[in-house]
């Protein structure tokens, strides 16, 4: 019998308004325990206001074996935002 717990991917937010950032994963028996364990792994040193956990098996991902998924066959440089600086964050007065 496989007694290994499933993995959950952990997303960490350091301040309200910031994006949740993927920081790693934890083994856990269910989502509630995953949050508990994620707190001990990822939130005890970094400042943290929110954690998300997502069952790894619930993530649908692209395949590295299929690079054409992202290919640009013709010149599409006109799509690149080169004419202006896009800041990471928006500032409000």
């Amino acid at each position: 019998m496989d007694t290994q717990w499933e993995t959950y991917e952990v997303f960490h937010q350091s301040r309200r308004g910031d994006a949740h950032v993927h920081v790693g994963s934890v083994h856990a028996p269910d989502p509630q325990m995953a949050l508990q364990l994620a707190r001990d792994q990822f939130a005890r040193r970094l400042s943290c206001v929110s954690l998300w956990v997502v069952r790894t098996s619930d993530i649908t991902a692209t395949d590295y074996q299929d690079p054409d998924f992202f290919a640009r066959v013709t010149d599409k440089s006109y799509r690149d935002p080169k004419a202006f600086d896009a800041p990471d964050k928006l500032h409000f007065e």
Partner: protein
Amino acid sequence: MSLTIPSHIPLEHFKRFVLSMADDELVLGHRDSEWTGHAPILEEDIAFSNIAQDEIGHALVWYTMYMELGGPSPDEMGFLREWKDFRCCHFVTYPRGDFAYTVVRQYLFDVAEQVRLQGLLSSSVDALRSVAEKLLREESYHLLHSQGLVERLGDATPESHERMQRAVTEAFPQALGIFEELEGESFLVEAGAFVGNAALRSDWLKEVVPVLHKASLQAPVQLEAENVKVLVSPHEGGRRGQHLEYLKQLVDDMQQVYRLAPQSQW
């Protein structure tokens, strides 16, 4: 002495109470730290190391209060005291056992902490109220963690059930020793400083028995209408300094490095 308590509370008995709280936290924190690098799951290894640091941090809060009442420094209390002078209950001194025992002990202790600190929120002594408020913020998460494991492991697989049940049978009478009456306790109860161990024990039973039961684990008790009748005798003696050899081994281990050079600055 930088902390004063109301004059009608005998200082000696008050200090004994503070010491019993401090020693429980330090000794259990040390036992929890013994899982660092050895727990069955990496995540639990880190969780228990974290809990160990929290418990030892709580011990420091209580030892600091003890010092402010005229006692020695926290370092002297932890690292230079004879094992016979500790006032922890036997329960926290037993070896860490297997992980089932550790989980059950932590759960039974966390509930005791919860009812003790909740009780202190209405203490007549300001210092006790503010310490309780502060420590409850962390203790509530210890309880969430240990209760979460008890609920899940109680009936997860036949092996987990069997090991958890064995741990409950072993730990329950030990845990009752947390509530051993302290010498002079009645003075503190009368002064409203603390609700008393008999009341805490009854609150504790009302909380743990149903949770264990829901996790398919049997506590050695009989339910009679509103009352929970305990069928085993508590492991007492720790509050009077009558300790088991386990504490001696733990204290030797804990004090070994400090005693090599007590004057060093860390």
